[in-house]
């Protein structure tokens, strides 16, 4: 009882400080998504000379015209290859990014579409630019339905399978990145609101003034964890508004925003508690800032913030299991890219994050010393 009311008193204090510095908090939260999202959307627009192998089995005037149309713009660098398997080997080796196979039925629509396109899942920004261009070229000479594309998986690497939805390759990379940025902002916000404020309060002597009051010591930590959770709602709102303004979409709509909030709040509690564990062991601000930079960014990368986990080497894929952010981002991807969030995934993501949150908070309370010696 007293623990809860003490925690609320200290939560209010954190929120008053947050509100007092609202302007810098908004700027700090907004600047990262702005820079990342704008930067990457410009990257996508600058795609040129993408290496493409064309296997022309049709060998008729129309198919020749189609090949010419591929190379008419700077977008693609076309290599003619006589054999499909040879072309796919090149794709698997990474020499080229696309294989276009024109079947003998072209330009008429046979039992299967006459233009088959294979791509690797590494170059998101090129995929989303090149695929529509090929489809448009096909549509001009035949019909739009005469085109089919699929991701190519080299047989030597069965681990990278299509059944994990977190590839981003079937969506657009900006939306993929958008969901990653939501996670990053939550983590940054949690680390800097909880851990950093604990260190500054320790250095400024404020912690001492709390310790001499008859409160339950755990309230000093719980108040911060609460405020971090509430502040994450604010950060999520800012990132979503910026993302939508920049043309990103959330496939699942309003229900998706609800799930983003649920996962985001849990993630924020985990990261806030982790930063409090570190902050209660450190005595200076510089050391904590080094922690913030060396931990937050790798956690983001490992969780698949900018590249899908499925494209990682197996070691990193294994490490990502222990990164709470992985579970939050997995949910964000379903919500933002797929538009459906299967129940099984909801159960896994929410329960793993909740366990992480409880365990890290408990450890942070254990690690916090209530004496100053």
């Amino acid at each position, binding site marked *: 009882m007293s623990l809860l009311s003490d925690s609320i008193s200290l939560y209010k204090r954190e929120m008053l400080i947050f509100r007092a510095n609202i302007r810098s908090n908004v700027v700090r939260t907004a600047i990262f998504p702005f820079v990342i999202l704008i930067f990457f959307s410009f990257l996508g627009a600058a795609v040129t000379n993408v290496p493409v192998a064309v296997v022309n089995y049709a060998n008729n005037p129309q198919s020749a015209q189609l090949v010419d149309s591929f190379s008419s713009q700077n977008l693609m660098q076309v290599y003619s290859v006589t054999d499909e398997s040879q072309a796919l080997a090149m794709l698997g080796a990474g020499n080229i990014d696309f294989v276009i196979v024109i079947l003998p039925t072209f330009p008429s629509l046979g039992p299967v579409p006459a233009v088959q396109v294979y791509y690797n899942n590494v170059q998101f920004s090129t995929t989303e630019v090149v695929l529509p261009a090929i489809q448009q070229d096909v549509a001009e000479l035949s019909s739009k339905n005469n085109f089919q594309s699929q991701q190519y998986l080299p047989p030597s690497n069965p681990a990278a399978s299509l059944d994990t939805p977190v590839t981003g390759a079937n969506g657009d990379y900006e939306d993929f990145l958008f969901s990653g940025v939501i996670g990053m902002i939550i983590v940054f916000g949690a680390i800097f609101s909880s851990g950093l404020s604990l260190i500054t309060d320790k250095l400024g002597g404020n912690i001492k003034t709390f310790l001499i*009051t008859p409160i339950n010591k755990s309230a000093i930590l719980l108040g911060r964890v609460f405020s971090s959770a509430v502040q994450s709602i604010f950060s999520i709102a800012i990132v979503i508004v910026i993302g939508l303004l920049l043309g990103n979409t959330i496939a699942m709509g309003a229900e998706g925003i609800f799930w983003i909030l649920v996962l985001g709040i849990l993630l924020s509690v985990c990261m806030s508690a982790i930063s409090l564990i570190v902050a209660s062991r450190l005595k200076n601000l510089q050391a904590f800032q080094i922690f913030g930079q060396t931990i937050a960014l790798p956690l983001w990368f490992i969780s698949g913030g900018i590249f899908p986990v499925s494209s990682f080497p197996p070691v990193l894929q294994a490490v990502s299991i222990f990164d709470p952010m992985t579970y939050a981002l997995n949910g964000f991807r379903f919500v933002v890219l797929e538009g459906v969030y299967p129940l099984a995934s909801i159960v896994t993501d929410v329960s793993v994050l909740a366990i992480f949150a409880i365990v890290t908070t408990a450890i942070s309370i254990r690690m916090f010393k209530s*004496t100053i010696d």
Partner: protein
Amino acid sequence: MLLTLLNPTSGRITVDGLDVTKNHEKVKKLMGLMTQETVVEADLTARQNLELFAHLYHITAEQREKRIKEALGEAELEKFADVKAGTFSGGMQRRLGLVRAMIQEPRILVLDEPTTGLDVQNRTTMWGRIKQMNKSGTTILLTTQYLEEADELCDRIAIIDHGKVIALGTPSEVKRIAGTGRVLEVIVKPEDTARVLSLLKSRFGLSGAAKGDRIIAALEKGSESEFTKISAMLDREKVTVLSIGAHLPTLDDVFIKLTGSGMRDASGEMQGGRANMRWR
């Protein structure tokens, strides 16, 4: 230790019959502390500062409003109640810190160097407040580097050097440690201090202490007449005397006599045998 910020290495502390380590919640409500560095919540207003601590001390809702209003009045901050404490001057912050430490109406108030860094007006006002609080029944334990402050305010004084109490008593009892006679004070050019010290030693058997250009030596009771002889001797030895005098011992003299005159800058001794002064 009293406030449970440190764990005692040995022994037992009781406040008002309550064991500090066992009943720390009750004890903490009896105690108030104002730390040396003024700590206010800079991003909170004066009122919010007081509200926060009223909550943390579990003051009941009906008491809270009243206590906050009183505290703002005591600190003369009514006009600035809704201004952020971070924008206050040092003196205002110190006043806010003091009433905040008093919000739970403690029986014992610990003040760690309450006037360090304050200007003369603020210091005098702070002294007035401290005296007033003491008169209204609060025991005050204060540490200070200003010995005249201790002399002015305290009923009992303890001098602690290297963690040990080396003197304890009322100001006049403590002053008697420096001797019942007078204190000789000679100010000469800095380069002459060593010579004057050795002259005092060889001619009069006085072991003095030098602090910069100032030499201090104790004249025992009954030997006051030596003062004129010393003055004449220094004149004969052609020492340029900038000032010479004799006065009753002050706490400064006691302090130097007890702790030595060397600068204390070894780690943990920055305060130079800090004086702890207790009242009542």
